[in-house]
């Protein structure tokens, strides 16, 4: 059997694929964070809680309204996005123009409140959310047993990341957005409603987090803590990719997913710090991040 670095090739391929799957979640979440930071200059600490809300929205829709996975895939992100609109309109707007630290503190507090509420209502053991029947089971790829659902996560996340990139880089809406980031006053002078634009951007970021939550629900336990576990790593991913860089967030998401996967084989004890070690190194060598502009 072929071996690379002392590991059989099939094992290595398996880990590569797993890394891609985890990277998909990182990419989706860091994408939303990057969009929000890029446009609103808000360090959105509530992102993990929004991701958790997406998963819970899917769970609650199923249990209290009998609405299954596929409709939830659309509905849950919309619900989270609607909450995003409220957060931006009622709270974040008031901090506009202040030091980003205020936004960070506000969203951090919000996430503690949201997680606390759900912890009180549901405990921490987590709720079970079964994958849709069409995606249940798995296929034997020869080198590993691949759950169909996880394959779907990779595909869905790639499509969504690409779509978001197209919206921001190739559409008129995206052009307005980018222009508003550069010079809000000027864009407003051209008759574009910048405040609405910002609200929509935040809603888009929140919706992406909600979508990641729905995608994650069948993979992990739907637990109030699920966002807390991810958010710090995702922030590191955004920093590595370059704050505000959409390309960077997505690329760094997949890259770090894969690196983390390999660490789990070679030195599992370090698997939850490897991302931060890389972040420290990147900050030392390229403070603006891999894809960031100076």
């Amino acid at each position, binding site marked *: 059997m072929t071996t690379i670095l002392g590991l059989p090739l099939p*094992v290595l391929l398996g880990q590569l694929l797993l890394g891609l799957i985890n990277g998909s979640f990182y990419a989706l979440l860091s994408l939303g964070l990057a969009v929000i930071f890029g446009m609103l200059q808000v360090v959105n600490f509530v992102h993990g809680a929004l991701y958790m809300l997406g998963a819970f929205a899917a769970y609650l829709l199923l249990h209290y309204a009998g609405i299954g996975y596929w409709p939830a895939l659309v509905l849950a992100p919309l619900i989270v996005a609607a909450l995003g609109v409220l957060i931006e309109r009622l709270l974040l707007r008031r901090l506009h123009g202040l030091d980003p630290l205020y936004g960070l503190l506000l969203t951090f507090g919000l996430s503690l409140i949201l997680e606390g509420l759900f912890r009180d209502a549901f405990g*921490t053991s987590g709720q079970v959310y079964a994958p849709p029947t069409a995606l249940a089971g798995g296929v034997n790829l020869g080198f590993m047993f691949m759950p169909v659902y996880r394959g779907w996560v990779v595909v869905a996340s790639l499509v969504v990341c690409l779509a978001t990139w197209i919206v921001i880089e190739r559409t008129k809406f995206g052009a307005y957005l980018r222009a508003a980031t550069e010079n809000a006053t000027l864009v407003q002078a051209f008759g574009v409603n910048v405040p609405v634009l910002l609200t929509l951007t935040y809603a888009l970021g929140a919706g992406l987090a909600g979508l990641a939550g729905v995608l994650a629900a069948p993979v992990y336990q739907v*637990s109030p*803590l699920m966002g807390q576990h991810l958010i710090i790593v995702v922030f590191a991913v955004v920093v590595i990719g370059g704050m505000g860089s959409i390309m960077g967030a997505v690329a760094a998401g997949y890259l770090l997913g894969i690196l983390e*996967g390999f660490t*789990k084989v070679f030195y599992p004890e370090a698997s939850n710090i490897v991302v931060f070690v890389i972040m420290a190194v990147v900050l030392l060598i390229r403070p603006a991040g891999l894809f960031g502009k100076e």
Partner: protein
Amino acid sequence: MKGTATGFKRALRISLLSAIAAAPAMAQEASDGVVKIGILNDQSGVYADFGGKWSVEAAKMAAEDFGGEVLGVPVQIIDADHQNKPDIASNIARQWYDTEQVDAIMELTTSSVALAVQGLSKEKGKIDIVVGAATTKLTGDQCSPYGFHWAYNTRSLAVGTGGALVEAGGDTWFFLTADYAFGYQLEKDTGDVVKAKGGKVLGSVRHPLSTTDFSSFLLQAQASGAKVIGLANAGLDTNNAIKQASEFGIVQGGQRLAALLFTLAEVHGLGLDAAQGLTLTEGYYWDLDDDNRAFAERFMKRTGRMPNMIQAGTYSAVTQYLKAVKAAGTDATEAVAKGLHEMPVDDFFGKGGKVQPTGRMVHDMYLFEVKKPDESTKDWDYYKLISTIPGDEAYGPPSPDCKTGQ
């Protein structure tokens, strides 16, 4: 006839009077006018359902059932969240002992935390009763003359679940181990049982506490070809590992999962669909007999859930502590510790229980199988009893590593 009745009344009156007269004198023995018990555990992390605020509720029930007071002074239960961090736990414990007149600290889920707080309690000459942590070191080389270990430990789990699976033909093992004191001990103890019974340990992989994605570790376990994959972790970690194992077709592939520390709370969180067929060892099950049911129903009314061995064990530990205080007539550490060592445990949780000189409470453990969804006839109806493991077999003789035990 009348004379006897009067005589009886008189005797009663005298004894009552003398009891009242004696009360203030005894109350002086309880220092600072209150017996305060601190419940220190994880209330927000991976073990929040394993023990958590539910354990606090159980402790409060125990205090109330005891009458709310002992030696004529009130019993007070306070609690705090240690976040699974030994440094935070030690700070809280120090504050409780130094400035808040806490007499004993209990529950102490998470082995690393329990070891730290037991060390501190020993130094301060205070009693601690560990319920939620598992490591045998607590009554082994890191034992304390004032430290007690109540509901279970890694050895009893290893003997129960490990022993049962080897006997059922699972003679090669691979471990998924939580990367801290508890995981190492559980892996070691289970490995010892497996080897003693003629099995082999093929390898292990250590994962950080509160890992959400186990796929990579599971794939390594799968590649090892071991018949049994031992999950030497707990709480949410075990739940995620089991759930993801089924996703990656590990059980369909012919390997068996052994959840070495798995309680009713985790079965409930995982759901019977995913948990069915698991073999597990627990020290308490609400539906075993009438006494257990009576406590569980009351607990259910207060919390909306059935207790597991940690919560029921906390009730037992608080009750036994209060009994010891009452019997000693003081809350002074030496006297109460002596009582705890000598008094038999006799409540619904620790029927026929006894405490070893090391502080280890020895009581029967039970080997359960998780029911299939169609076998479960009511809410929380999750376990089938496979066998009862006598206390002495589950816990073994007192550890020779414990030098401070009397």
